[in-house]
């Protein structure tokens, strides 16, 4: 056989110092693999599992996809829960701001236009630099710079200027009052000279952990930063694996390769009955809703909207499509938030829904689908292809709407394909945060945002709504704000530009009895993964095992 030579030829074709050894290694390996004893391998796995758990000071976590950036200016750790970077303040479990790099909460001038922050003393970045006001200024200016296309800019629309009063004092000046401004000072602070860092290795923060290793698309390894200003975390080494595939995460957790993972509810079953694992279900403000385009012949029709609003059984949807992992949603603002108003809530009642349709002249046709003067009550429902959860939601809506005589045709598409069609076709949309009512409403419903990127996808346009949103944004007193968002929610309940369906639950599984302190009643925002989850407060974990 001339095979070896040909094989060598292939190798030679690309002179690459790894290839030859590695592939020959693989060859040998196959021989060995042929004679691996089945009985040893599983036990090997167990040992692996044991090994990870015994080292309680280290944890291996499988999160979902890798964040697009590790730079807070570009959206990383938007809510200040960064392990690497820290903001001036952060939002606690109770959603109340608490000072971090700031000595105490920013003091607001009476006119509500200036916020002054005094920085904590003796804080150093991982590279040894001392934290000072310039760093804060630089970071915020970078976030405001349109060149960076920072998602954080959305939070900072009110911010006019940032200046360093002295080395330890920063003053924020707003264009107009914004009572919620404090929640936006969660932005993670970078050294002035490194605000445009892209690769995680370059991201230098003040946080309890610093980056030890990083392989794109694969893993991020953090170790406790020796000279952290706060108290040292007990878990000193954390490995985050980026595994897009839900199933792969489940399997790796089961095989003991990882200690904790974000999982889809369908995959929880086997872990729930297993004492070795601790299942954590987090309530969220992460809603899923149907965006009903104003322009659509069917989707724009009030009767149809009301029918869907009242006709869809949200609980059934949660029990079915979400496998119980969630709770009904009626609006963008979660019940936990102070701005929440119950005007949005409705009692699911197909009967009234059908009545409404009948009255509006939508009469059932031979094919079981209603129609009004030639127009069938049918519309396409887009969802991002590959997102099983939204696909399930779409399927459930299709099933329930059919009962009402409305035909819904789910269609899985890439975001590129979805965007141009948002003005005409319905969409399963997901977003929401418990912290900032302005953020979870303004971009979605203000007419100025119609079809701006993925803002206000339905093109909803209502003067009352716009007014209410602006009022809410400008509100100085909390009472003012609450009132404004009450109006917003009334408008939503009245016009029904969207039909809100459910807040999806974020589920995590973690190896039991090894750590403690991770199970806090946190309400998570839409974004989760590296920041959210049981490891949200990783620094304050204790090693239960000893």
């Amino acid at each position, binding site marked *: 056989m001339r095979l070896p030579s040909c094989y060598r030829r292939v190798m030679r074709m690309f002179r690459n110092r790894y290839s030859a050894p590695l*592939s020959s290694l693989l060859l040998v390996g196959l021989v060995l693999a042929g004679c691996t004893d089945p009985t040893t391998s599983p036990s090997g796995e167990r040992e692996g599992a044991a090994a990870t758990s015994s080292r309680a000071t280290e944890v291996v976590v499988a999160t979902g996809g890798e964040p697009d950036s590790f730079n807070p200016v570009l959206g990383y750790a938007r809510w200040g829960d960064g392990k690497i970077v820290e903001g001036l303040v952060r939002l606690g479990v109770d959603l109340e701001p608490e000072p971090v790099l700031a000595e105490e909460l920013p003091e607001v001038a009476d006119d509500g236009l200036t916020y002054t922050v005094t920085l904590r003393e003796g804080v150093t970045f991982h590279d040894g630099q001392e934290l000072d006001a310039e760093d804060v200024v630089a970071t915020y200016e970078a976030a405001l710079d*349109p060149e960076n296309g920072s998602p954080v800019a959305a939070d900072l629309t009110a911010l006019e200027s940032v200046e360093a009063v002295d080395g330890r004092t920063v003053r924020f000046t707003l264009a107009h009052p914004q009572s919620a401004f404090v929640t936006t000072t969660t932005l993670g602070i970078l050294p002035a000279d490194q605000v445009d860092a892209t690769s995680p290795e370059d991201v230098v923060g003040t946080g309890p952990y610093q980056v030890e290793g990083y392989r794109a698309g694969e893993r991020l390894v953090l170790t406790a930063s020796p000279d952290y200003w706060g108290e040292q975390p007990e878990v000193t080494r954390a490995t985050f694996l980026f595994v897009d595939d839900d199933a792969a995460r489940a399997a790796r957790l089961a095989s003991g390769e990882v200690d904790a993972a974000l999982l889809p509810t369908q995959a929880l079953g086997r872990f729930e009955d297993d004492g070795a694992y601790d299942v954590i279900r987090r309530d969220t403000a992460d809603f899923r809703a149907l965006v009903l385009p104003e322009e659509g012949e069917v989707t724009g029709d009030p009767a149809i909207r009301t029918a869907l609003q009242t006709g869809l059984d949200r609980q059934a949807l949660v029990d079915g499509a979400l496998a119980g992992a969630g709770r009904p949603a009626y609006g963008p603002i979660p019940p936990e938030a102070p701005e929440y108003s119950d005007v949005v809530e409705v009692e699911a009642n197909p009967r009234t829904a059908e009545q409404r349709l009948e009255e509006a002249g939508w009469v059932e046709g031979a094919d079981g689908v209603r129609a009004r003067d030639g127009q069938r009550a049918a519309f396409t429902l887009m969802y991002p292809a590959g997102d099983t959860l939204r696909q399930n939601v779409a399927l459930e809506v299709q099933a329930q709407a059919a009962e009402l005589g409305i035909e819904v045709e789910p269609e899985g598409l890439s975001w590129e394909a979805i965007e141009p069609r948002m003005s005409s076709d319905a969409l399963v949309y997901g977003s929401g945060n418990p912290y900032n009512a302005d953020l979870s409403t303004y971009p979605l419903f203000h007419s100025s945002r119609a079809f701006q990127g993925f803002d206000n996808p339905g093109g909803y346009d209502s003067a009352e709504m716009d007014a209410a949103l602006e009022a809410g944004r400008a509100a100085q007193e909390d009472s003012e704000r609450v009132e404004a968002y009450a109006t917003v929610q009334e408008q939503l309940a009245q016009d029904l530009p969207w039909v809100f369906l459910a807040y999806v639950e974020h589920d995590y599984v973690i190896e039991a009895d090894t750590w403690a302190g991770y199970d806090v009643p946190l309400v998570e925002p839409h974004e989760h993964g590296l920041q959210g989850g049981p490891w949200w407060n990783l620094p304050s974990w204790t090693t239960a095992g000893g």
Partner: protein
Amino acid sequence: MDDRRRVRLPTRLHPARPPLTGLLVGRLLLLPVLVAVVTLVMFALAQRTPFDPVLATLGERALTMDGPTLEAMRDRASDTGAVQQWAAWWGNALQGDLGVSSSQRSPVSTVIAQRLPWTLGLMSAALVLAVLGGVLVGGLAGTRPGSWADRAVGGGLLATQAAPPFWVGLVAVWVFAVWLGWLPTGGATSPGSGSVEALDVLRHAVLPVLVLALSQLPWFGLVVRDATRDALAGVPVRAGWARGIPTARLLRQHAVRPALLPLVTVLGVRVPELITGAVLVETVFSWPGVASATVDSALRLDFPLLAALTVLTTVLVVLGNLAADVAYRVVDPRVGRRDG
């Protein structure tokens, strides 16, 4: 699965046979042209598609990001013509700058340097196994034409050939990783360990390599089977038998051995199928090779990486075909007589 049409002896795979040097020159001249054309077509396609560079570079961020900013970036995004883009890409590429991969978030050259060895390892290991297996099975069947063994092997190979690698991979994962729990479900190294340890890699490599090998084996098996059968039907075997050569030896030396020739000489022709298989297998087992990176880059519209990888595979295939033709001329003793 390009195999079906290819279960043939090299005589038919290479109908026309120009002289070796001419062939070499011709192919090597074709290569740059080919690569140039391919990339140009890519850029041209990229022009008239839902392909949005801004979204591509922003990725998921585009969804959470504030609308006006996104629009602003779009306005700034220059849309030059395909040809300019193409020229620019080549300009940089020839200076060794392949651009930065948005899906892998690191320079394309680094991505390839990191991932190529894994793919080559996977492919070469699978190739070796596939060939050995193919010879074994094909020889067995070919030397017993018409026997139940022959029919069984023939049917089995066809069935295997009809089984898509990704499906076989899934089944393998279910059986060996999920059900029996003997082997890991994917990846090339255990997450806990930062370093690359031989045994660890091997455990991870078993399934991918076997599945890839299995996807290639039928073709080799059928080639050997048919070639053996042809050899067996020929005069030399009868002559050898009449000379009194012991049957076992006769089959081995005069039937199977000639059949190895076409096999060896057309290994190179398998490169495309091998790559195809690698793409699927690497995806199923999330093997950190270039093939799976191709898919990611396509899914995330990571243009620089996609272009680079396409060029890479093109070159691979051309060289493979070339190797096949050369090998054919070098190895085949009968080639001299063909024209006579």
